[in-house]
């Protein structure tokens, strides 16, 4: 009895399955890779010397940092004012705008990359429009340039800059701006002296997140950039494809990881003290990835209106020109975020044979081409199978882990959360190589199980983050109350905890499926030759023959996030203990 109770008191063991998967497929292989890069058992830094001794390597390294820096800066320049304007509008409009930012965030990044090919291609939207206007005679080289890389990267990363910024800005008490004004500060001074400093945490976390994720970019630069725009991930992938020289690959992977970690250490960590450090960083990551989820919560909980603050705020910015230019800016940003998806949808109905925009006629032939081709439908089926498997596995394992970690001491929780998040913070190619090595040991390369386990690494992280965020708001006294009324631990969990954290679990499950359904980098490394998932086939086709079949698939994928959002909205809305729902009495 006593031991049972003690176990129930420290349910850290619930996290064991998650960590078992993590260690077997990712943790131990990472250690092995590191040892390989160090020429274990003789131990030398020869591989690293060789890496840095090679001029081309160093050039790619600097290029990676440069591209990431520029993309991050662009995101901040566009994202900060956009976030500011989004927080300034009324609650209803804000919700709409946030949803419009979240939709591209949830859209397959392959689709979004593909959209830029349609827009920038030789017969794409821009070139055709310019030619029709008579401004050019031969197409401009837009695709396969550095500019195309920046466009694509900023387009993909912008939501991840805007969302943390909005969340921090919403937390800033707007009456502070009014107070500054009342003390004689002009609007700009009030902004500069009060608002900007208070929004710095958002700038820092948004920029850090974007920068670190940019460092690991592979697909977008490879698809949109020229040969000279290779990033380190692309370079590593090429190494893997040409010669599977583990030592060289491992070395490059650890160099890439090293930059990411150094950046996190320099900018991410609060240097206020060694004790608070680990806790803060990890929870910041949780916070970042949890951000989109909180928006859904927000529009489920509209009763938390801050009308008073909103009206105070309106008193601050009343100049007409500011309003007009603000509106225009937000509209342009939203267009930039959403327009590519719309272009893809239009493209999918093209009657032409090539990626020609605007299309010469309307037809459904590319949809037919997709559904009639067994290699496409087979890939779709494979992806759905794997996706469902991943969702089931990671939702159960991730929820258990979140519950277990929620009940441990904060320092251990922070550390373990940081560990679980590694598969979504580390560059995908690094995680992919580790997973390759891990699955090789189990003989699971080229199997659906292997792919599902690889996807589960990231999916568990998403489930953990989202369920943890829900659990953090969960009042544990409710469990104590249930226990005091005679409910054992299991009944308490089923009757009280589970119904109350179900929205988080649903959200986590959706993210898990989405992650699996969109994953290509890791999949390409572990899928072997026989298995083709949908994103993998899409990526291969994008590189070789570009025909609008992909557009048909892409526009179907564009609809997915809309479906997700509706599904999430319905679960969350229903779970809200609200006045509208409760009045009719249940017939019991």
């Amino acid at each position: 009895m006593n031991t049972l109770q003690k176990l129930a008191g420290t349910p850290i063991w619930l996290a064991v399955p998650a960590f078992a998967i993590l260690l077997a497929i990712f943790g131990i292989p990472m250690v092995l890779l590191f040892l390989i890069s160090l020429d274990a058992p003789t131990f030398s830094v020869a591989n690293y010397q060789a890496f840095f001794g090679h001029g081309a390597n160093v050039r790619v390294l600097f290029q990676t940092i440069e591209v990431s820096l520029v993309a991050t800066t662009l995101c901040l320049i566009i994202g900060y004012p956009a976030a500011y304007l989004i927080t300034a509008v009324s609650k209803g409009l804000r919700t709409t705008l946030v949803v419009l930012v979240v939709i591209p965030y949830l859209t397959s990044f392959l689709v979004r990359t593909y959209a830029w090919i349609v827009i920038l291609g030789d017969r794409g939207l821009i070139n055709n429009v310019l030619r029709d206007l008579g401004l050019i005679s031969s197409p401009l080289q837009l695709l396969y340039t550095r500019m195309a890389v920046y466009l694509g990267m900023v387009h993909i990363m912008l939501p991840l800059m805007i969302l943390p910024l909005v969340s921090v800005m919403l937390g800033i008490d707007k009456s502070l701006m009014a107070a500054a004004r009342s003390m004689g500060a002009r609007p700009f001074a009030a902004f500069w002296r009060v608002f900007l400093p208070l929004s710095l945490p958002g700038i820092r976390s948004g920029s850090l997140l974007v920068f670190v994720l940019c460092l690991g970019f592979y697909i977008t630069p490879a698809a949109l950039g020229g040969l000279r725009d290779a990033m380190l991930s692309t370079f590593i992938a090429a190494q893997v494809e040409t010669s599977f020289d583990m030592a060289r690959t491992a070395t490059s992977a650890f160099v890439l990881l090293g930059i990411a970690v150094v950046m996190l250490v320099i900018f991410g960590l609060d240097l206020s003290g060694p004790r608070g450090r680990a806790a803060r960083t990890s929870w910041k990551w949780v916070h970042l990835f949890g951000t989109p989820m909180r928006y859904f919560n927000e529009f489920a909980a509209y009763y938390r209106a801050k009308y008073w603050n909103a009206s105070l705020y309106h008193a601050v910015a009343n100049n007409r020109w500011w309003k007009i230019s603000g509106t225009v800016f937000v509209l342009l940003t939203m267009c930039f975020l959403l327009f590519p998806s719309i272009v893809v949808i239009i493209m999918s109905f093209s009657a032409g044979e090539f990626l020609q925009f605007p299309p010469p006629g309307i037809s459904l032939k590319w949809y037919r081409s997709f559904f009639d081709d067994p290699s496409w439908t087979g890939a779709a089926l494979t992806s759905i199978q794997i996706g469902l498997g991943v969702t089931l596995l990671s939702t159960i394992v991730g929820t258990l882990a979140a519950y277990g970690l929620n009940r441990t001491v904060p320092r251990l929780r922070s550390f373990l959360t940081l560990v679980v998040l590694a598969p979504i913070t580390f560059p995908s190619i690094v995680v992919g190589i580790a997973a390759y090595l891990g699955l090789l040991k189990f003989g699971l390369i080229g199997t659906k199980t292997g792919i599902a386990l690889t996807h589960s690494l990231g999916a568990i992280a998403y489930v953990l983050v989202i369920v943890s965020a829900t659990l953090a708001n969960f009042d544990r006294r409710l469990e104590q109350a249930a226990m005091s009324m005679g409910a054992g631990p299991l009944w308490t969990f089923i009757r009280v905890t589970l119904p109350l954290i179900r929205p988080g679990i649903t959200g986590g499950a959706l993210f898990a499926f989405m992650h699996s359904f969109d994953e290509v980098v890791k999949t390409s490394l572990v899928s072997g030759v026989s298995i083709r998932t949908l994103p993998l086939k899409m990526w291969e086709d994008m590189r070789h023959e570009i025909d609008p079949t992909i557009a048909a698939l892409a526009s179907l994928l564009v609809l997915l996030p809309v479906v997700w959002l509706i599904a999430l909205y319905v679960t969350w809305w229903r779970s809200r203990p609200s006045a509208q729902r409760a009045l009719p009495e249940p017939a019991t």
Partner: protein
Amino acid sequence: MQSSQLPAQIEFCSVTKMYGPIPAVSNLSLIVRRGEFLTILGPSGSGKTTTLMLLAGFVTPSKGDILIGGKSVAAVPSYRRDQGIVFQSYALFPHLTVRRNLEFPLEMRGIRSAERAKRVERILKRVHLNDFGGRMPSQLSGGQQQRVALARALIADPPILLLDEPLGALDRNLREQMQVELKGLHKEFGITTVCVTHDQDEALTLSDRIVVMREGRIEQTDAPEVLYDRPATRFVANFLGEANIFENPGFKIQSDVVQPSGTVAMLRPERIGVAAPAAPQHADSDLRQSVTGTVADMIYAGPLRKYHVRAGGDLIVVREHVASGQQIFRPGDEVRLEWLRSDVRFVAA
């Protein structure tokens, strides 16, 4: 209080609870008798909530044992203890209606649905919430939520009721009303009740006995009147009501008893009279001590008037009920303070 004749329902036997190296509760021994309303009073961090959690079974003792009805419960999980608990923020299940909330403890005890419905209706009526069974907790006011929480704790007729700051979230008027209601329910159900609070009014109004805790230890256990009138220590004197402690009075404190060593003299502000220096003496002036001083401050507080008077080395607080025909003193006025020698108490320093 004849409670000492009643059998013990709950016994703490030298219970210690450590959090890391810090004891939250150390070597606590306490007996709660059947049907008694016992309040544990103390400032935050005094270990009172830990004591309640130990009793509820959410926390296990590091040392010592807890007996309920004569049996050790140290290893019994909370869901087998058969207690009703009212939590500080009520902990009503937000996803269940009031009725389903009330049914929950009955369901867990395997009571059939017809019987459950009957008992729910009965208790709803008892707490004056007849028509609220179908509401969600979020649709109730604070006072209504409080009553649902209380009903939910009582519905399964547990032998023990635990209250964690039960009225803390209510505003002043509602709190007084609920105090009366709580007292009525306790009398009606005759249930052994342990209440934790930092609100001394609540403790004085509701309890048969009060335990004052400080830094994980019991400072004093007594009936409310005894506790207020004869505090054992300076801490208790200060924590319950206001107290004048004579640190360095500059005059000899007269008393009918000999001052024990290690104590200081204490006098409640309402036991001191204030008069003009030239005012006639009381008839029983030989039973009284009087000193003169200067008014430093006068505070008007509705039915009361408070003077801070500098006399000797101390600032003496005097509390006087406002009545017509009283002389009102201003800062700087000379006054004579006097009190019955028998009102002086000696408390452990």
